[in-house]
């Protein structure tokens, strides 16, 4: 479904992503982990087209993404959430989702009222229907994350990129968020690439894990192998523990 081959991206002298290749097939939940500054978020920016790679190709269902602008990539069926929520702060929660509904593929003649109706379905799915008329800047962090999820789902994605949903949530909220993501995956038939820092969650949720370290892919495999991999332990804890 998504295929990255030899993707390289550098910012000035810093090589943020160095020759990374991997593949994601339909229906998978793939975890992407790595220490701080490993290039996880850069990789997501590359897939969604915010940054363009210096070298290599990113293919989604056989189509080359590196030449497309971000909104075309979104219409191909790739949606993302942000680590730091990026809502439209002066719009209500409902309108935030309406933007996503109206701009997706094959919605040339949808009226605003129809879009609001459909947006309220996605808001209800993530449990924010009660807050539909609240301005996005007045929502709490958990609600913002759910709003981002609703917005991403409203673009009808095939592949969902999740960027550290758990950052800043308390344990109860993060459990609810994980349940929500699992439910969304079943309900909307999604493929998920999940960047996460909380090992406990990602190890139980993902079927396959990719580990990045200083922009390089150092390991890939099922969670139980990754947690015993020497290179990964070295990257996280230092040589002494490896």
């Amino acid at each position: 479904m998504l295929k990255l081959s030899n993707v390289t991206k550098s910012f000035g002298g810093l090589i943020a992503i160095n020759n990374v290749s991997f593949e994601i097939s339909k229906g998978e939940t793939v975890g992407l982990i790595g220490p701080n500054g490993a290039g996880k978020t850069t990789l997501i920016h590359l897939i969604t087209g915010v940054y363009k790679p210096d070298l290599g190709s990113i293919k989604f269902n056989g189509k080359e993404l590196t030449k497309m602008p971000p909104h075309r990539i979104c219409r191909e069926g790739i949606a993302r959430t942000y680590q730091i929520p990026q809502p439209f702060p002066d719009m209500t929660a409902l309108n935030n989702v309406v933007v996503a509904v109206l701009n997706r593929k094959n919605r040339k003649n949808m009226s605003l009222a129809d879009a609001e109706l459909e947006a309220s379905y996605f808001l209800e799915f993530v449990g924010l229907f009660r807050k539909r008329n609240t301005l996005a800047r007045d929502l709490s962090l958990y609600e913002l994350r759910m709003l981002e999820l609703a917005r991403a789902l409203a673009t009808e994605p095939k592949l969902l990129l999740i960027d550290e949903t758990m950052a800043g949530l308390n344990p109860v909220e993060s459990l609810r968020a994980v349940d929500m993501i699992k439910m969304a995956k079943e309900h909307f038939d999604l493929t998920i690439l999940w960047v996460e820092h909380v090992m406990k969650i990602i190890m139980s949720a993902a079927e396959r894990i990719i580990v990045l370290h200083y922009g390089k892919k150092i390991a890939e495999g099922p969670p139980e192998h990754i947690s015993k991999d020497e290179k990964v332990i070295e990257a996280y804890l230092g040589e002494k523990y490896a």
Partner: protein
Amino acid sequence: MVSLEFKRDRLIFRHGTSKYEWIIEPRYWRNPIIATLILSCIPALMYGYPNVLTMLTFANIYAAVAIMMGLQTIGTARVNFGPQLYVGLGGYVASIFNLYFGLSPALTFILTILVSVAVALAISPIVLIARGLYFALITLLLPLIFLQITFIYAHIFGGEFGLSGMSPLIDLGRASWNYVTYCYLSLILMLIYLLIADKIMRSRFGISMAAINDNETAAEVLGVPVRNYKLFSYIFPSVCMAIVGWFIAHTFRTFSGVTYLSFFFLIKLLLIIIIGGRATLYGAVAGAYFIAVVEEFLRAFGPIHYVIFPILLIALVYMLPEGVWGIYHKRHYRDYYPKLRVRR
């Protein structure tokens, strides 16, 4: 079948199968029809006071430019500090083609649109390239450069005195009738702009424009074709502003860059927008009328408004940052209310 019924809190008017309701409680009286009726009554009542009629005409012209500036601000997510460029451009194109080539106002109207579309298209890449401070600087300098050009080529543009003697839009033969006609024409122009801008902002395109204004990158990742929206919302309002310039040239029959291209005209526009409440469309009308009245009032004290207006601008930015519309918005927070931000 026509019937009028008074029921608890509302008047109900029935005609055939259609039904119109009018809620009597004053807090629901924010119907634009009332404001339109009041605005269209004033010029007729002021017949015989040419000063007042000129003031009202200017108020409508300011409002028309400010409305389009608001639309441009929301759609491009950038504050254009040089909307006068297009007013000047439209005015000069209309004047030059009318005076030197003898074209009628209808033909100069078409030429104004063509030239301003060409210029706006040529300048529009700055919307994609420049952000924040750089965009403000570029747009601030463009009209001043144009003003210098009018000084350098004074034999074409008329220099400091500008051009005069253009053919009028309508001439009824009596000056007092003409004043009223022009006041109404400017009002119609302003109301058309208000209607267009309002329709755009309330449509499905308006909500995407609002999304761009709030967060450009997030909007693009959600599938909004940001580039097209920004180009449209730069070019369309620019052309509308140029039409205002055409209107000025053919109603006052004199046009000089010193009046419309200078920094002071910009200060007036900024004041209108700040008083009205940033990029709000209806607020711009209130702000424009306020500024026109204040300008007329200060005229008796000589050129003191050159000092007072900038001071007023600074004071308002500090004391009433959301304008008069902000007070309304506190109660009606669900209406989309864009904010001007100067981004890095």
